């Protein structure tokens, strides 16, 4: 088991390294994108550009530049090309908002996803099932950014039901904190609620055919007991794994939602850096996001290996 864990962790590091090289390459392949010009600002004189090129090392070989940048990221010294500010500090500033957004949305989607999925499965084929299925499939089909724009325009601007802008820290006022985040939470959660409820429903319907359920029924347990104690519990396992993976990928959704709702989190910073073609923050944020994805992937792998010895054997046969 120990060796397995070590191997997976090593794999994690290798993937992160590959990700960093990939991102670095993408941005250095852009023709006519000169970071010295970016730093120098609009309409800068050639002497200034030359001075910056030399000082920041843009005339050095690409591998050397790569190493310098990675070194700076891990020592907390990396500077943005566009704003000349410290990237790591800005990322740390954005963490409370992004985490509030992601965790809140996750709680919401898990709760409603499981609830709707359970109800759908228990009343499979009936009206409630059909309605919830429609809701779920619609949820999967909505463009997140469009939903955010519509909710913002009608519920916040026109009807003034929700506050616009500004983030209230949890430590300052939990109620206000939640009130300001309701719309962003709903926007992010909608897609996942749809998806998870259908997965749960499907798993539960499969599980109902299984032997252990028949055995439980034969023992005389009430239907309700059978459903919750046995079927639901076993169907939740893949849900939990999915959750682990999706949570890591939330950063993508945050990029769009934060901008529209004026949350100054990491997603917003990622968006700004992208449109500025600003490599240092893009690199730092991508690694940050990739780290979580890979971490959750690895944890899930390890958990599975622990629970299911066949997986480990299967691995070594490869």
């Amino acid at each position, binding site marked *: 088991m120990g060796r397995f864990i070590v191997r997976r962790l090593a794999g994690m590091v290798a993937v992160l390294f590959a990700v960093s090289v990939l991102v670095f390459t993408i941005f250095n392949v852009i023709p006519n994108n000169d970071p010295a010009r970016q730093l120098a600002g609009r309409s800068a004189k050639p002497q200034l550009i030359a001075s910056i090129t030399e000082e920041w090392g843009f005339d050095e070989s690409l591998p050397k530049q790569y190493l310098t940048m990675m070194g700076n990221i891990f020592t907390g010294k990396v500077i943005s090309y566009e704003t000349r500010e410290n990237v790591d500090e800005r990322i740390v500033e954005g963490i409370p908002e992004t985490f509030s957004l992601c965790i809140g949305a996750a709680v919401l989607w898990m709760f409603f996803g499981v609830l709707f999925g359970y109800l759908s499965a228990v009343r499979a084929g009936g009206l409630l099932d059909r309605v919830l299925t429609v809701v779920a499939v619609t949820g999967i089909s909505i463009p997140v950014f469009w939903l955010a724009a519509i909710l913002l325009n009608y519920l916040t601007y026109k009807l003034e039901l929700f506050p616009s802008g500004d983030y209230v820290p949890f430590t300052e006022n939990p109620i206000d904190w939640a009130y300001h985040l309701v719309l962003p939470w709903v926007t992010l959660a909608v897609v996942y609620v749809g998806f998870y409820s259908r997965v749960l429903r499907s798993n539960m319907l499969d599980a109902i055919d299984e032997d252990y359920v028949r055995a439980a029924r034969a023992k005389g347990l009430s239907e309700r007991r059978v459903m919750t104690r046995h079927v639901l519990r076993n169907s939740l396992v893949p849900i939990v794994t999915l959750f682990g993976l999706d949570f890591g990928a939330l950063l993508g959704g945050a990029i769009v939602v934060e901008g529209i709702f004026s949350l100054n989190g990491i997603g917003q910073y990622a968006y700004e850096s992208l449109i500025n*073609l600003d490599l240092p923050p893009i690199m730092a944020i991508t690694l940050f996001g990739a780290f979580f994805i890979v971490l959750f992937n690895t944890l899930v792998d390890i958990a599975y290996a622990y629970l299911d010895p066949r997986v480990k054997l299967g691995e070594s046969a490869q």
Partner: protein
Amino acid sequence: MRKLHTALAVLGLVAAVLVLSSCGGSGGKEGGTLSGSYASFPELDPTIAFSVEGWTAMYGTYLPLLTYKHANGDEGAEVVPALAESLPKISPDGKTYALTLRKGLKYSDGASVKASDFTASIERVFKLNSYGSSFYTDIVGAEKFAETKSGGIPGIKTDDKTGKITIELVKPRGTFTNELALLYATVLPAGTPAKNLTDDPPPATGPYEIVNVEPGRGWTYKRNPQWAKSNAAEIPEVPSGHVDEIDISVIRNQATQVNEIERNKTNWMQTVVPADLYNKVKDRYVGTQFRVEYPINVYFFWLNMSRAPFDDLKVREAVNYAVDPKALERIYSGTLAAGHQILPKGVPGHESFDLYPHNMAKAKALIAEAHPSDREITVWTDNESPNDDAGAYYASVLEELGFDVKLKTISADVYFQLISNPSTSNLDTGWADWFADYPHPNDFIEPNFSGNNIGSTNLSHMDVPKLTEKIESLGEEQLGPQQEDEYASLDREIMAQAPWVPYGTIIVSTFVSKEVDLDEVVFNLLLGQDLTSFQLK
């Protein structure tokens, strides 16, 4: 009798009190906290900041030797003394500037302001490779310092005991007084580190100081205690400010910024009201919470004179006749003050004229005459609304003239570096804007039309040696009525060559919540709203 005397005395006293209290200003209250919003987080290091957002943030905090007058309209273009006693004494040959630092000035951390701090501050401009470096390279020894970053700048001589500062230039520079008033030349303590201090700004000399910065999120001002104690009495040209505290937060969504002001959650937004809300806000709040402002800028389409088909004067003239200012006014939702000359209103030397009034038929006739063989052109524009629409409109006009147009829309933050990069291919024509570094006609003409700036700011690649020479020599002269006339005629001469299709000036706005006294707000045409002028009702 006594009782009448007493009564009259009391009446007189009451009257006196009433008169005196009403003389104290508009009657708005002093103190309180102003909350503001920005749509993006600017640089808060005066030596580096090159955007209006940064300048507005620091106008009331950091003082150079000179500053721009805290006044509305054209008056704001006047340079007045700040940390220096008076405007510089300039030698007859235009190469020596003499100033004296006022006595007893202190930074917000209590340290005294010394004359040698000025030299260190200019050195910091070069050490940080600031955009402002190009304004001070004419100082003797500066160019060498810019390259080596060592050895000091021999052209600046200071005496800490007398406060005298003498600056020697390599050649006369007519714009230097203006450049000394820019925030790049802010006087900071000599030991200030040569790195971006946005997260922890350096000590202030003005009425406010920045006390807390949350990068990306916002920052806070409080009154600078040293201002009232030491500096205010010495510097009458800079007002002391009314509110005690200013809280700025970054709200990226501009529609949300407007919404917050309407709901009185925020008092002021630095950003312009976005186009689709502009008319609604203007109609509802003009005069009470909304005011139109006229900064100095010019919006235009540049034509690359160094390649076909725009190397032909007739083609360039035709394009100028073909563009319709009425269409552009709509595209800018009324925030454009149309104009067809280079120097905008507010800049000395400005004269309104139109060499090419809109006439599509004439434009097409000129094209037929010129009969350009190369009809394939690439039109460039940035993706910020409504500039992208302006670019798309321009492309459709060129298509109507018979060209085969390819429109390239580039992200706003990399647009300018792309189109000024000589190695970018197919730079035929495109959209651009020019915001002045300072209110001087030379700042509009020299960077854009001098042959020395091809490959950086001269987007149309204009290279007419006679004109270049005239621009450079006029730039050495101090600005007076004669020079203003010469700049006006230079504007015409350049437009006769039609390197650009200028289409007007973007007007901005001041939008405040109902708690703020709109009439007291001062908007400087270069630096934006003056934070020291905000007063709560």
